[in-house]
């Protein structure tokens, strides 16, 4: 009896296979067409934000423009840019939290508390505004980290910890704002001028140019490294299309905003942060580990990743972004008030990320989902104001349009796959 024989004979046969018929480890460098197809497929899986939610967005724009032709006017686009920016910044933090499969209900409160802290520091205690902003964002980060700490060390569900945070920080916000409930940032002061300050038209174009050139150069460098390493590079055609597409979008947006007053600082902050988070999530070690924790926390732990540290850091980021959103919204309203950052902002900030394609269950999401998601929500809201509806109709229309926009997305996805 020698059962092991069977096995013994096989190795040679098989190792030969590996040489004589090389395993198709990587197909030959894909063509442009193939790449576009597979990217589209990937996007559809909710990876880089849903492609077809753009369809819903464009539909919303067309409908509102038909109803009121001021909708796409330069002034209103300028308004829209400012209106989505503070929520957008908050949603960037939400994307990170959702990536690790957790939830942060405190962001609305941290936003409001951030505004209050800024007001107390700058208005009541005469701090330098920029120092105040840094301190506020740092405070947000600390509060977030604290919640993350409780979440991980005491193993309390994040829903409960951050619900507690929501209430606690709301209380602090009220307390900081004192009896009057509001601290004003004087009109014309640094803070109230911050988010609405617009770039000079030339500066806007210059910035867009820099962005496009950076993208092109980095793309070329990556190509060269691919080629050098013998790893099949994406086709040059794709890069060209991407660069041209980016350039067209950026310049049209800048042109439209320049027709009003110029590109508002709020939008620039939001977009720069979005790019930062995109790089963080997709290109850095940290981002990869964050996604790993969201995908399979146990596997990440077994791979030697300090899962708790990742979680705490993500909650810190979420808190910091919420506080940053608070700074921007305080600047937008010109005051820190009790009603800043409530449950509506909370729900919309999460909804934006989800609409943009980030999964609520961890591991899948993109920084762009914050941008596209807030474009959808912001456009619906902004368009609603052009309709002058009474409250009840307002709610109904927003709810219906929201669901409709996501259904358009879902249906177009289904059509493409069947």
């Amino acid at each position, binding site marked *: 009896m020698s059962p092991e024989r069977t096995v013994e004979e096989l190795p040679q046969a098989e190792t030969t296979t590996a040489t004589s018929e090389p395993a198709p480890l990587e197909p030959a460098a894909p063509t442009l067409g193939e790449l576009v197809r597979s990217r589209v497929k990937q996007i559809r899986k909710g990876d880089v934000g849903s492609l077809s939610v753009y369809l819903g967005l464009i539909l919303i724009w067309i409908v509102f423009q038909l109803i*009121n032709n*001021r909708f796409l*006017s*330069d*002034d*209103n686009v300028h*308004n829209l840019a*400012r*209106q989505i920016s503070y929520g957008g910044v908050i949603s960037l933090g939400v994307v990170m939290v959702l990536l690790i499969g957790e939830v942060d209900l405190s962001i609305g409160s941290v936003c409001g508390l951030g505004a209050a802290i800024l007001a107390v520091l700058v208005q009541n205690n005469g701090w330098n505004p920029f120092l105040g902003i840094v301190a506020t964002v740092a405070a947000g980060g600390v509060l977030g980290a604290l919640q993350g700490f409780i979440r991980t060390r005491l193993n309390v569900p994040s829903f409960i910890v951050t619900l507690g945070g929501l209430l606690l920080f709301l209380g602090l916000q*009220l307390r900081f704002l004192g*009896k*009057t*409930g*509001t*601290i*004003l940032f*004087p*009109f014309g002061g640094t803070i*109230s001028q911050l988010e609405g300050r617009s770039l000079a038209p030339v500066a806007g174009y210059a910035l867009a140019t820099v962005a496009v050139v950076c993208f092109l150069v980095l793309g070329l460098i990556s190509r060269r490294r691919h080629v050098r390493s013998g790893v099949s590079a994406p086709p040059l055609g794709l890069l060209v299309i991407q660069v041209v597409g980016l350039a067209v979008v950026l310049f049209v947006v800048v042109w439209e905003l320049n*027709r*009003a007053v110029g590109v508002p600082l709020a939008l620039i902050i939001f977009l720069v942060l979005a790019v930062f988070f995109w790089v963080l999530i997709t290109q850095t070690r940290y981002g990869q580990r964050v996604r790993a924790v969201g995908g399979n926390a146990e596997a990440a732990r077994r791979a030697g990743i300090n899962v708790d540290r990742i979680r705490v850091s993500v909650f810190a980021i979420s808190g910091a972004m919420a506080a940053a959103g608070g700074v921007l*919204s305080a600047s*937008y*309203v*010109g*005051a*820190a*008030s*009790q*009603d*800043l950052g*409530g449950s*509506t902002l909370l729900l919309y900030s999460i909804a934006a990320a989800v609409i943009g394609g980030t999964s609520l269950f961890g591991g899948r999401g993109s920084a762009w989902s914050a941008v596209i998601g807030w474009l959808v929500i912001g456009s619906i*809201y*902004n368009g609603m*104001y*052009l309709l*002058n509806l*009474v*409250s009840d109709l*307002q709610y109904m229309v927003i709810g219906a349009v929201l669901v409709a926009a996501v259904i358009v997305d879902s249906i177009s996805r289904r059509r493409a796959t069947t």
Partner: protein
Amino acid sequence: AEVQPSRSSEGGCTIAFLLPENTTPRYEAKDHPLFLDAVKAQDSSCKVLYFNAANAADKQQQQAESALAQGAQVLVLDPANVNSSAAIVQEAKAKGVPTVAYDRTAGGPLAYRTGFDNVEVGKTQANAMIKAMQAAGHSSGNIVMINGAPDTTGAFFKQGAHEVFDKSGYKIAAEYDTDGWSPTNATTEMTQAVAKIGAHDIVGVYAANDTLAGAAVTAMRQANISPIPPVTGLDATDEGLQRIVLGTQYMTTYKNLKAETNAAAKVAILLAHGKPVPPAPMVKNATGDDVPTQLLPPIAVTVDNIKSTVIADGFATSAEVCGGGAADACARAGITG
């Protein structure tokens, strides 16, 4: 920008009417239609852009921006947040659009203000309540305060009421701020006040408006308190007036909204046409700007003067007040028949 809000090029005028919230019935039920009527009556060529901010200051700011983008020539603003409204006023001014503060005061360089003195409203309520308590033979004892939302006019009412109560000899045994003017919360507040103080030891209840008063009355009746001690209110709602007739609420505070909307509409139309506003006493607002201010007096309404105030003004009809089982009581009070 292709379409600047132009003052004279269009034949008519565009007025933006920005209201603060939708939980209290008065705004969408009374202010909105009354203002539309007033504008229509005074200048039918004027278009009104209507907004309701649902208690959110940033939302109101977005609405104001939207109004400006739609070419509004004047903003009539009842601020969701009294203090932070300065940003709206300033942004409008920067675009050459004047702002009229309506009902509540606002910050910033206002062109005009019409409304009520809200601290005075609180004093009116408190004084009326003390009068009723004394009439019932209580010159001291426990009272409950159900205040409105602290980030709205509720703060001014509370301030006025405290100015009266604090030196009155009554003990404020329980006091709550009611976020969002929520009657649901107010019910629980009153229930817990009863649990805290005891069902028979409450001599009066300060409720900041009629909605809260209704909740307080419900809670007391469920706790089997009888008779119901004096309860205050505000806004002269149909339900409130009915309770007054039935004797479960002592008073409500009546703001003559018709007069208020008429005054606001008049000023707004003048401003929209680039004409000067009527003279009024200058008052400094929170941001230190001098504002021509026209204040109307609040009126305490009890069962004795319902007929001569709200009904006489056409603010409520005797049919509305006396419906739903209040007919007999109305007849007894001399409101009908």
